[in-house]
């Protein structure tokens, strides 16, 4: 970064709910400080002032679901020195990736009276399927403390310090009783990426995997455990087919249960 020049940051939106970029505006205590350190050069949800690229840091929210967005993400990549994807939509295709398991034409006709006007791809895919990504921040939504960490790591030219273990470990660190052992509540904590601070188990609820798979998760072993708690094949399909349905580990697991379910019928 050159002396005296503030780095230029851009926020881009593709198919999404806006929740991840809202996390930036939810940093009520840090927002003005961040704005002092970086030039917010493109952030349509917050500002009508748009500064031309190239950008030092681009935060990308959302998945690719239309032909024009598939083109636009290439432009964003070209204009960005450092590209970080934020949230399950951008890292895994999001909840809208449920279409990837079905016939999209049927999907369109359920929602729209005149399907012929809808231009959409058959799939919702993560950003990394289209361009190279420098860093991925998982979560639906992302954790705002992690977002602040990613921005400040970038400002200091270091690697973001984000955890790679599971929600299960976060739960232990927090001193929670295990909801699965103590209450027999099915929980995806053992296979889900850390970052949220084990929110659901702290509220007597099993994790539903909104931070996506951790590295090398043992999903089939967890499924067997859920089976012993009385969860059937069809429910296991739904469990792994949530906001991170198209993340590879969860996708494979849901497909395995789908096959099993078909055989059982």
């Amino acid at each position, binding site marked *: 970064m050159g002396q005296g020049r503030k780095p230029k940051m851009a926020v881009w939106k593709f198919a999404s709910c806006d*929740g991840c970029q809202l996390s930036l505006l939810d940093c009520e205590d840090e927002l003005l400080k961040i704005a002092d350190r970086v030039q917010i050069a493109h952030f*349509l949800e917050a500002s*009508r002032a748009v500064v031309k690229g190239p950008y030092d840091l681009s935060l990308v929210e959302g998945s690719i679901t239309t032909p024009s967005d598939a083109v636009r993400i290439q432009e964003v990549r070209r204009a960005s020195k450092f590209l970080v994807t934020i949230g399950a939509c951008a890292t895994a295709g999001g909840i809208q990736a449920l279409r990837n398991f079905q016939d999209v034409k049927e999907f369109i006709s359920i929602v729209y009276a005149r399907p012929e006007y809808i231009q*959409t791809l058959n799939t919702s895919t993560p950003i990394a399927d289209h361009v190279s990504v420098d860093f991925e921040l998982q979560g639906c939504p992302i954790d705002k403390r992690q977002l602040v960490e990613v921005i400040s790591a970038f400002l200091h030219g270091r690697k973001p310090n984000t955890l790679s273990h599971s929600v299960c470990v976060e739960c232990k660190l927090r001193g929670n009783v295990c909801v699965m052992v103590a209450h027999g509540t099915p929980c995806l904590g053992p296979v889900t990426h850390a970052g949220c601070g084990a929110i659901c188990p702290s*509220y007597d609820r099993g994790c539903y995997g909104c931070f996506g798979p951790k590295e090398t998760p043992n999903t089939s072993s967890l499924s067997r455990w859920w089976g012993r708690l009385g969860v059937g094949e069809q429910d296991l399909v739904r469990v792994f087919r949530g906001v991170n349905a198209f993340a590879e580990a969860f996708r494979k697991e849901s497909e395995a249960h789908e096959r099993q379910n078909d055989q059982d019928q």
Partner: protein
Amino acid sequence: MKDKTIKISNLARIEGEGALFVKIKGDAVVDVRLEIFEPPRFFEALLRGRAFGEAPDITARICGICPVAYQMSAVHAMENAFGVEVDGPLRALRRLIYCGEWIESHTLHVYLLHAPDYLGYADALRMAKDHPGIVERGLQLKKAGNEIIRLMGGREVHPINVRVGGFYKVPTKSELAPVAERLRWAREAALETVRWTATLPVPEFDQDYEFVGLRHPFEYPFNEGRLISNRGLNISVREYEDSFVEEQIPHSHALHSRFKNRGAYLVGPIARYSLNFDRLSPIAQEAARAAGLSAVCRNPFRSIVVRSVEILQACDEAIRIIDGYERPTRPAVPIRPRAGTGYGCTEAPRGILYHRYRVDDAGVIQEAKIVPPTSQNQKMIEDDLRRFVQANINLPKEKLGLQCEQTIRNYDPCISCATHFLRLHYDRE
């Protein structure tokens, strides 16, 4: 006079992606289009085959700015299908988390998205250079709303604690105490907000709207009530689709909701306020009067003041709920699914949000219908734009363009919400 075209291809400071297109020939407005190019995400389709208990978490993902509204309409619709009533402290806690969302969402809009229009800034960060105290107050007020959602829901965006029947876990009185403390500050800050927004310059632009909103026997509406209008509508929630339709207009790029026999209508803060002024708490009524509002507001540019009054109302209501709170013995009432259809409609920050679900006897969703506030207001936004441009046709193009943007932001439109049901159109000029 020369023809002119106003084209704003990327509207800023709204939730989601949209564009505005206005065409003027001589001294007449010939075309006004609020275009939506946000990709559709097909929520109604992907809900089919999902378990009833998943509806609040899935529909929350329609909108990161008002997830609680989606969760509330979803749980009410499901409980309606199963014949379950949630009352007492659980009902009060639902109102409490909704207060949090109103405070958070309205404050975001008032301070960060809308106020810069009135004061001539591109955004609130630039506004903060000249008015640091005001923006800081806004951020802290927003945070007070978020703190309610975080305690009640686990986190600000897509809270995890709401379920059909109630919650997974309910707070203790002592956990709520610090939130109430902060809310007493927030109530003062909200009062200041009403006073401040009342000083912002507004154009004369009174419109003859049909307001639609919920009406409850004694509360300012959040979760329940009958659907009424100032022109005689008075129906139960389950009758919604008898009175309203979504229409596909050939020259337009979106499906619009309208009254079956009348046309455009208005939902959201100024509709809610004008239909329920007498249900506001005394402090909110007084603040509204002092700000120069009467019991009915017809000028959309004053929606910023009405939103501020609603922030005050939500702070006051939240304090009242916490002060009277007794922890319920169980966090949720038991649910036994049965086949049927359930209807739910609650007041999202931007207006009524309607959900209908048909479920089978195992509680699996067979059909879902969701009508968000922004798609209901879409027709009215275009009507406002047409009239506003016509009345100000001699303004220089750039100034008129800015004011058109402000006209749209009066509605705090949420295009992410509207899109799963808006038609797409790509061959924009």
